[in-house]
């Protein structure tokens, strides 16, 4: 048997061995590794650092695997020299002769030679030892970490250390994070997200020295800033570690030079991985390394293959920081940008186009379409035709079915299309494996390695499962609005706005609805989103409303309705009560006093609704909207009008608020309360918006609840005047209308976006004014009594049966 010696047991050489053994190649293998262990998935050290995975879970080849394939392991032993004349590798513990030799010594972290860089407590982020050192340092409560380098590796280290409970500061020399993968805007969003999780980020931070007595104690910056540190992680880059090849006289540039067959200048010596240089290129990401491994295995087996450079994409493996970048996105003459931003949701997408080809993509916050864009870049697809809608991703490309539906797009991919870039797994292999019984993501990963390395293509692999298995596959993940679409509520709202979709059919068509005209789940939601976005253009669709909103009354279990007139601020008059009493008698209604300070008339027949409304209108009353996802009641106490404790006119303010807000449609119902003093008789602190009057003004609380969940309001702001209280309240309601998911009460929405964000937006007086202006535009259409519109013909007739056949003989 031929003797194959491998120096370095990393991801690249591990992959070479897998290919060789799979092909049944007759090699007697000796494997040297300086680290005292075999091959593990180095790119998954981040989850080990953060505690999301154990080291055992990222081991690629264990002792049993090496034994099974007859590999002689010399782990923890460095190679001293290669003697090419005698064809032997000289290890620290003896020589091994070779027929063929693979150098896979990888790279070494770059350590800036700062004063103090060799103190204990300064680590790189390269191997398990570094990772363990950081985990150990994080064990002490209140421990502080400084990470030098705001690139991919540094940020993953920072996030991991933060998850371990450390105070983490990232020092980055450049003006924005990950400048090689991200542009400034995406870098800004990333910084914001990291800061949100408690990681401090200092940009343009130049480190002067690391100091301490016998171990790291602090980091000093050029500008004099001093940062305490128990551990310093230097993650500023890597450099090829091919010295053993250079020493042996192999041709080297910045690393060991190889040809497209991974052969060095010595025909029996090969090199693979981060220690090689190919056509002037160095390597740091895993995907091309696996390409090299495949080519090298073929070469050793005597088959033809050639390594070629290809486009790379990057994702950051920090849970919750969703970013994607691919290709070239530098600004240059002749290049054009397509940019989409949604500051409220922290989303940024940028596509760079040159000569009708997509050449670069940067995405932050929503990266679902990353692989699709990456495919366009790699294939140099002509995008002129789809340019207008390109940034919305594959779901919105008109024309063929493949463009309309992401699943169809995946289904249309040829079998040789590459799905998993890390492991070079193509669609055909995955589909075959599914056919052979791998019907879960885990099973597929185990059998094909697809999405088993960095995980970026997990979505694609899941889509393949869905396409191949049909309905029996449950993907989980972002929840679509309903079965009619794969889009989330947020996506739909964004696209209605961005693509100016002004009708329901436009939404169904342009967003590729799977049903003809929606379902009872999406229809009311889309109807609301459209009228909230285009109040002046969109015609409210009664047929997309639940029965109560369509009939402006609440249906009861026997098919009759309840009718509830508005009592502004809970105030009524003797004349109103007389009219209510008369109506109750005339239409044989039961009378109930409600918790919202109004009177409910129950048991009214549908046919009688227009008539009872006309009677109530005649007495000056209007709909109380007790049936709507809109403003319900404003509950008040009597305040300074009567109460000896009242501090402000709570009744008056309640009436003003109700007159301002009534008739508006909202994602779910909205109830208000105004109490005249902190005794809070109006129970304002469990309302969607609750105002508590105090001597100095008005305390506005939001996001309370007293239904399925009980919540106390959270303080939005304290204001001095009624006008301000009304302005803030209307701004809050409008912000809720513009952003909340349909059927989320304000408290649920605030839980999702965070009260801090709501405060931040509303504390800007210009923004508050703009929200009020948009609210008033909408109210110019909706601040009116729907009852009055249905008491006369032709509307009233619609509440009657279309025909009455009871009087006619059937024959």
């Amino acid at each position: 048997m031929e003797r194959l010696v491998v120096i370095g047991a990393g991801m690249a050489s591990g992959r070479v061995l897998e290919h060789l053994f799979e092909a049944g190649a007759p090699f007697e293998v000796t494997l040297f590794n300086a680290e005292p262990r075999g091959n593990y998935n180095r790119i998954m050290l981040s989850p080990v650092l953060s505690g999301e995975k154990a080291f055992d879970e990222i081991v690629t080849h264990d002792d049993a695997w090496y034994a099974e394939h007859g590999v002689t392991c010399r782990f923890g032993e460095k190679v001293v020299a290669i003697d090419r004349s005698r064809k032997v590798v000289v290890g620290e513990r003896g020589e091994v002769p070779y027929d063929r030799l693979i150098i896979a010594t990888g790279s070494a972290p770059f350590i800036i030679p700062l004063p103090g860089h060799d103190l204990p407590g300064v680590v790189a982020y390269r191997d398990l030892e570094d990772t363990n050192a950081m985990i150990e340092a994080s064990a002490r409560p209140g421990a502080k970490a400084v990470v030098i380098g705001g690139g991919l590796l540094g940020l993953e280290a920072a996030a991991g250390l933060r998850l371990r409970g450390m105070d983490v500061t990232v020092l980055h020399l450049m003006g924005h994070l990950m400048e090689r993968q991200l542009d400034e805007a995406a870098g800004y969003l990333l910084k914001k997200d990291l800061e949100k999780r408690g990681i401090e980020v200092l940009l343009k931070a130049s480190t002067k020295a690391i100091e301490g007595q016998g171990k790291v104690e602090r980091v000093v910056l050029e500008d004099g800033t001093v940062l305490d540190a128990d551990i310093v992680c230097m993650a500023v880059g890597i450099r090829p570690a091919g010295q053993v090849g250079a020493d042996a006289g192999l041709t080297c540039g910045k690393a060991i030079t190889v040809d497209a067959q991974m052969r060095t200048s010595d025909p029996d010596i090969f090199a693979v991985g981060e220690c090689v240089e190919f056509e002037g290129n160095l390597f740091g990401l895993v995907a091309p390394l696996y390409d090299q491994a495949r080519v090298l295995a073929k070469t050793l087996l005597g088959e033809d293959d050639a390594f070629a450079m290809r486009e790379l994409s990057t994702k950051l493996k920090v849970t919750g920081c969703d970013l994607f970048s691919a290709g070239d996105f530098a600004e240059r003459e002749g290049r054009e940008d397509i940019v989409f931003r949604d500051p409220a949701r922290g989303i940024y997408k940028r596509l760079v186009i040159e000569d009708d080809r997509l050449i670069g993509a940067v995405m932050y916050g929503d990266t679902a379409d990353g692989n699709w864009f990456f495919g366009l870049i790699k294939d140099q697809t002509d995008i002129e035709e789809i340019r207008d809608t390109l940034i919305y991703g594959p779901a919105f490309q008109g024309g063929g079915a493949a463009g309309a539906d992401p699943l169809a797009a995946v289904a249309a991919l040829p079998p040789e299309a590459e799905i998993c870039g890390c492991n070079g797994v193509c669609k055909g292999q995955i589909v075959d494996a599914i056919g052979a019984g791998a019907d879960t993501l885990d099973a597929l990963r185990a059998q094909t390695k697809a999405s088993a390395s960095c995980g970026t293509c997990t979505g694609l692999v899941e889509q393949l499962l869905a396409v191949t298995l049909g309905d029996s596959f449950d993907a989980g993940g972002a929840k679509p609005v309903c079965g009619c679409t794969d889009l989330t509520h947020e996506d739909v709202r964004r696209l209605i706005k961005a693509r100016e979709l002004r009708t329901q059919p436009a939404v169904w068509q342009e967003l590729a609805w799977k049903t003809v005209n929606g379902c009872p789940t999406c229809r009311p939601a889309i109807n609301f989103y459209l009228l909230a976005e285009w109040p002046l253009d969109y015609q409210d669709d009664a047929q997309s409303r639940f029965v109560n909103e369509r009939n402006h009354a609440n249906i009861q279990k026997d098919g009759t309705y309840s009718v509830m007139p508005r009592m502004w601020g809970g105030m009524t008059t003797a004349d109103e009560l007389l009219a209510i009493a008369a109506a109750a008698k005339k239409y044989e209604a039961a009378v109930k006093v409600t918790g919202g300070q109004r009177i409910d008339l129950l048991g009214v027949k549908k046919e009688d609704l227009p008539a009872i409304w006309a009677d109530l209108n005649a007495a000056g009353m209007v709909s109380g909207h007790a049936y709507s996802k809109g403003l319900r009641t404003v509950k008040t106490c009597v305040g300074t009008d009567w109460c000896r404790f009242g501090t402000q006119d709570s009744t008056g303010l309640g009436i003003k608020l109700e007159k301002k807000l009534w008739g508006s449609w909202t994602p779910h119902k909205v109830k208000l309360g105004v109490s005249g003093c902190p005794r809070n008789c109006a129970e304002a602190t469990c309302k969607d918006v609750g105002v508590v009057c105090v001597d100095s003004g008005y305390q506005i609380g939001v996001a309370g609840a007293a239904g399925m969940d009980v919540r106390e309001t959270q303080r939005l702001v304290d204001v001095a005047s009624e006008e301000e209280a009304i302005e803030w309240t209307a701004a809050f309601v409008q912000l809720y209308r513009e952003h909340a998911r349909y059927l989320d009460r304000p408290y649920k929405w605030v839980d999702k976006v965070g009260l801090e964000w709501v405060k931040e937006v509303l504390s800007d007086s210009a923004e508050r004014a703009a929200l009020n202006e948009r609210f008033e535009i909408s109210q110019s259409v909706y601040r009116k009594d729907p009852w009055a519109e249905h008491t006369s013909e032709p509307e009233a007739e619609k509440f009657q049966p279309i025909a009455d056949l009871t009087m006619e003989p059937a024959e």
Partner: protein
Amino acid sequence: MIWTDIGTLADIPLRGARRVKTTKGCIAVFRTGEEEVFATSNTCAHKQGPLAEGIVHGRKVTCPLHSWTYSLETGEAQGADEGAIATYPVKIEAGRVLLDVSALAEKAAA
């Protein structure tokens, strides 16, 4: 077949319904498309909800009370729910909606 004129097509809102009162209870007449109507019993098999008040989607209606969904073509409850409602022949002629009331007559005679 005993076709009875119950009104104009325009009287039924698109993706909506109207009721027809009969001696055997109400029939719901649904308009699922510009030129497409269906007629079924107005009464849900579950808790007698008025189906004419439901949301009409495709050739289906969802009951306003507890969201049972029926095929308007067959009257069969959809999904996990089991049950069925009566369906009646209905057609459009020159903008008028004609309902076949022979089933009602038979039942009345029986």
